[in-house]
């Protein structure tokens, strides 16, 4: 099998699994309890917090563990809106955000919060001037993702955070795809809130974190116990958190090396495909991108049909859009970048991993031309 869907999820690394094992049975205690197994769990929790904080240049008490990147995005947006409840609220975001942000904004809109989506250009980038131009006295939070999950395009986070800081507005970034693939230091980026997740960096599913800069006004959205300094109630998932920390440790250690490796493979892949297949576009190619992601649009054929052919040959990739329930929803990211429905429908996302090999890429480049010409022969357009 050739797995090229690392932006969806990654396999758990062996070292991570090992780091998790003691906390399932041996040190199973509830980190809030008093006795020995609980103390071990508590120590693991705080050690993990320290590791993750150090990796992003934060203090341990600025890290809140959650159940997923999606939950972290929800906590950031709903938590800030809740803290400022009773006022007229306005959020600035972009049309290429992950659904965890988009749908949460949509939901908040239903409660009276005003939402502005600043546009993106053809390569998928937000213009910081558009963010500045849309700030109102009610703007309570600006949320712009760090790197896009479909195209890998990196947003000008520093420029936007400077604008936010200048106006005293809270700035959140969803760094789920960026974390582990590029340096994400909270002070360098200038963010107040930042979402990260474990399972995109060879850690376990079901655990994420939200970085909350000291002094940021935010309320909990899950109430109950006083875990996570009363910012996120619920017994901590210690095995997952311990695994998360191990995954972060390894990601930081191999950041440069893995980045170089994936950049070489990605560029080789894109050059080969462009050489061998006509009418292919690489989305966001002109913009800065994380090294592992390649979004390719193949003219006049359907992405899911490409995927099934790939699947039958043992290659896993993904489409931005899935044809389901009546009419296919073309990817909101690609349409925001100006692609037509047909172009968006013919788009495949290949996302490489640290263990992807040149042989994998060669094999993919070998089979793609045949798949594309086969489908184009059938195509009515």
């Amino acid at each position, binding site marked *: 099998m050739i797995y090229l869907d690392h932006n969806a999820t990654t396999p758990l690394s062996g070292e991570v699994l090992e780091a998790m094992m003691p906390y399932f049975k041996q040190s199973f205690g509830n980190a809030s309890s008093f006795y020995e197994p609980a103390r071990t769990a508590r120590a693991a929790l705080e050690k993990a917090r320290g590791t993750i904080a150090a990796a992003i240049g934060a203090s341990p008490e600025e890290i809140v563990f959650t159940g997923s990147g999606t939950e972290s995005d929800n906590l950031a947006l709903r938590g800030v809106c809740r803290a400022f409840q009773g006022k007229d609220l306005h959020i600035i975001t972009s049309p290429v955000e992950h659904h965890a942000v988009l749908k949460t904004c949509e939901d908040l809109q239903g409660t009276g919060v005003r939402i502005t989506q600043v546009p993106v250009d053809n390569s998928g980038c937000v213009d910081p001037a558009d963010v500045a131009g849309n700030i109102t006295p009610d703007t309570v939070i600006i949320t712009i993702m760090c790197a896009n999950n479909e195209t890998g395009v990196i947003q000008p986070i520093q420029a936007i955070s400077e604008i936010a800081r200048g106006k005293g507005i809270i700035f959140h970034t969803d760094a789920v795809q960026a974390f582990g693939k590029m340096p994400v230091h909270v002070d360098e980026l200038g963010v107040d809130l930042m979402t990260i997740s474990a399972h995109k960096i060879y850690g376990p599913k079901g655990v994420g974190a939200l970085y909350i800069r000291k002094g940021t006004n935010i309320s909990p959205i899950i109430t109950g116990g006083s875990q996570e300094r009363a910012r996120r109630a619920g017994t901590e998932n210690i095995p997952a958190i311990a695994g998360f920390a191990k995954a972060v440790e390894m990601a930081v250690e191999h950041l440069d090396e893995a980045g170089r490796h994936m950049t070489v493979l990605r560029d080789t892949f894109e050059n080969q495909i462009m050489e061998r297949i006509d009418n292919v576009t690489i989305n966001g190619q002109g913009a800065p991108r994380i090294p592992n992601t390649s979004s390719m649009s193949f003219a006049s054929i359907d992405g899911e*049909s490409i995927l099934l052919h790939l699947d039958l040959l043992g290659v896993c990739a993904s489409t931005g859009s899935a044809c389901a329930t009546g009419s296919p929803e073309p990817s909101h990211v690609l349409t925001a970048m100006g692609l037509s429905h047909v172009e968006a429908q013919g788009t495949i996302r290949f996302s490489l991993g640290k263990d992807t090999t040149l042989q994998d890429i060669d094999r993919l480049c070998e089979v793609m031309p045949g798949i594309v010409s086969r489908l184009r022969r059938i195509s*009515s357009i």
Partner: protein
Amino acid sequence: MDKTTNNDEYSQPSSVDPVETESTVGPVLFYNELVIEHFTNPCNVGEMSPKEANGFALVGDPACGDEMKLWIKVESDRIVDIRFKSFGCPGAIATSSMATKLAKGKTLHEAVELTDDDVIRELGGIPEEKKHCSLLGITALQKAINDYYMRKMMESADSDDLS
């Protein structure tokens, strides 16, 4: 599964293993082998020249996700040849293929009786969210048959004028 023994079974509706069908409790989640076979090796793919075809249909809209072109050649009220081209998901391609396979060789009276359910049944089921894709093949077939009748009417009107 051995492909050569499989091919023969494909022409029979009974090729769907009854045990497999029974064990599929709840909705169909994935494409079955027969659907995949029709997707990878669709029947009757191609175009016909205006001289060859005497019925044509264009259905769907690429902007809505799928489009199909269908040509039929009718002789003595029977579909003697049929060709299609499709833009769409695997479900759309497989159901287009099956629809043409079912229609080929049938009289027009038999062909107009064909339904989406026939196509789905012959394929041994398709995932629920893909059922809308199966509409194209049959819709195109009915439209092409109508086109054939229209052309015939026009022809006889023309020859009436001439006489």
